[in-house]
């Protein structure tokens, strides 16, 4: 026991006498996993390549300098607080807005010089989904298909196919104003997929979706990526992104957050949720193995423990199991993306830092 590493924060009061000796706090390792990758991108690569892109509106610098690469075959999350420049970036990627500086490639095409090639390869689902309210979903999908240059018959067939996928067959010939928000979102995704794009840009696609639709959306996006498609999702639903996104691009104040700030944020403590069949034994054992009391928060049957590293979590779990505590659930309370995001905004002095370490 003596030699084992335990979990003790740096600034916690000394543990009670007789408790196992607390082990040194973990030092953040300043190794940047994205080193090089975040600052240099290959414009010839597939998917979405953004290189030092900037765009300002008068005196407002909406996007200062963003560089990242969303790879084909993967789902990439675009994460940042309101006003970070996400929507401006997506408008530039969607070939609607020209960047002031920098270069963008969508499936190898430059939106400024070859907007048609970009639009052929790209499906876009905006956050404010405008829809022709008097037209039916079938007409909307057929029309958008034809605007993409698909002949009438093929566009109608594709519309039928997408209506089934979006589960909108029953409403296919009603005016789209009768659709609920979630149904509108499904129609919006169908619209983005009309011309079988290889790159999908989604702005808050899960907003207003019921759990079933969310699951379907997740499956469809995964399938899309599995076929080699590139997906970039901007969302505030961080737990949703945690489920879905394999990569994440954090943006803040018009810049991609990278390097040290990101590493620090990722290494910050995260909360783990523990449920035991015997809550009393759990809280007793947590105290006995030397977890500082300000790192533990008990809510009913659940205990939340703030731990700095995954190794610490493994260690705590091993000790609890060894001590015979009947553990039924042991998992991070928040996902990777959510934790990083919250740490980043906390480091800014922003809001949304998870309440942790507080004395009950």
């Amino acid at each position, binding site marked *: 026991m003596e030699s084992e590493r335990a979990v003790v924060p740096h600034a916690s009061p000394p543990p009670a006498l007789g408790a196992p000796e607390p082990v040194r706090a973990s030092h953040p390792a300043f190794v940047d996993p994205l080193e090089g990758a975040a600052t240099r991108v290959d414009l010839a690569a597939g998917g979405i390549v953004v290189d030092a892109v900037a765009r300002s509106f008068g005196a407002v610098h909406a996007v200062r300098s963003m560089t990242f690469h969303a790879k084909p075959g993967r789902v990439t999350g675009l994460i940042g607080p309101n006003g970070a420049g996400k929507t401006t970036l997506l408008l530039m990627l969607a070939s609607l*807005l020209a960047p002031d500086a920098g270069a963008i490639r969508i499936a190898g095409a430059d939106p400024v010089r070859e907007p048609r090639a970009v639009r052929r390869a790209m499906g876009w689902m905006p956050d404010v989904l405008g829809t022709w*309210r*008097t*037209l039916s979903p079938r007409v909307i999908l057929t029309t958008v298909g*034809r*605007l993409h240059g698909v002949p009438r018959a093929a566009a109608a067939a594709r519309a039928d196919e997408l209506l089934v996928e979006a589960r909108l067959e029953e409403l296919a010939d009603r005016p789209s104003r009768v659709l609920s928000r979630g149904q509108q979102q499904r129609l919006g995704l169908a619209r983005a997929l009309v011309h079988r794009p290889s790159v999908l840009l989604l702005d808050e696609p899960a907003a207003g979706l019921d759990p079933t639709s969310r699951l379907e959306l997740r499956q469809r996006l995964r399938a899309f990526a599995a*076929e080699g498609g590139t997906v970039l999702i901007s969302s505030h639903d961080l737990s949703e992104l945690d489920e879905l996104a394999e990569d994440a691009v954090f943006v803040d104040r018009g810049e991609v957050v990278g390097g040290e700030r990101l590493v620090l944020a990722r290494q910050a403590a995260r909360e783990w949720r523990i449920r035991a069949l015997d809550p009393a034994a759990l809280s007793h054992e947590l105290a006995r193995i030397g977890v500082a009391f300000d790192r533990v928060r008990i809510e009913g049957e659940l205990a939340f423990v703030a731990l700095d590293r995954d190794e610490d979590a493994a260690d705590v779990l091993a000790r609890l199991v060894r001590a015979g505590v009947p553990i039924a659930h042991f998992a991070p309370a928040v996902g990777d993306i959510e934790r990083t995001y919250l740490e980043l905004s906390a480091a800014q002095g922003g809001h949304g830092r998870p309440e942790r370490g507080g004395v009950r």
Partner: protein
Amino acid sequence: MTRTIEAAEPTAPPTAPAAARAGGAAGWLGMLGVVVGLELRQRVRSVAWYVLLGVVALVVGGVIVVLWVALQGVQRDLGGAIFATTIFLVMLVTSLVTPALSGSAINGDRDGGTLASTQVTQLSATQLVLGKVLGAWIASLGFLAVCVPFMVGSAMLGGLRLEAVLVAIPLVVLEIGVISAIGVGLSGLIRRPVLSTAVSYLLVAMLSLGTLIGFGVATVASQSEESRPELGWEYDERTGISTCIETDRTYEAVVVRPDRVWWMLAANPYVILADAIPPGFGNDGHPDDVFGQIGLAVRMAQEPPHVESCADYDPRGIWAGDTPREVYQRTVPSWFVGLAIHVALAALATWGAVAAARTPARTLAPGSRIA
């Protein structure tokens, strides 16, 4: 956030649209047709549009019937008069309704978030704007269409000249197109739908009423005092004939000079219509329909002030000056100048809207959103 497992390189990228894209002019027009269809589906299939059509038919029909009843005892062949009135009413109604129909075509879509949905397709800005112009044009032609029964009725009354129909109908169609293009164009240039609609109305009002007001004000402003020879009259009681006598007296007269400012009327759509249609002179030597009467008035405005002399009277003392036909023959037609001004305005507005709708956008008006 890259997780450690690297996904396998994609082997089969999603298939590109299997359908071959139609190329060339046919494809370009086909795409334009899709936009026109989209516009018409939204405009023409709305209840409000049918209500408007009904109201227009009722109003025009009511005026025509009242006119017909009132004029029956006065004139024999009412066809020409009824037709001219119908055409003017259609012009009036479309100039009142078309700006409302077209004035928010582009910025309304932008506010509704549907403009960007069309901009991220293969559609070009030119196709987008022209499609909207054509859509608004066709929708407004509905007001001409509901008035066709009255025109057919006027034809059955007799006295309708074929050339009046052949000139008036295409001109009205073209004028409706001009107003539609101005409305759509301004909606692409001005961010707020309310403002662009109001500016469209102002522009139409400037052409229809502003030219008249300008002409009137300028005529009054250009008046001057001139001395004119005074004519004397000698009445012969035996024959009952008055004879004109030149005197050496003069009098000061206030003379207005519409001939210096008449060109302002050239851009008036009603004047264009009246001026373009060859006049039909009735038995009394005067134009027999509203077109001709307005046309003659504009032609007479071109004449410099006439200095009256005894030569204007025949020996029996009856006015023997120029007949309307003579005035018509020595003055210049102006309708093509006015029409050219209208078409140029429409083209300018459309071109501006195309330039503003081009993506990727480099400059944006302050506070505007593009999606």
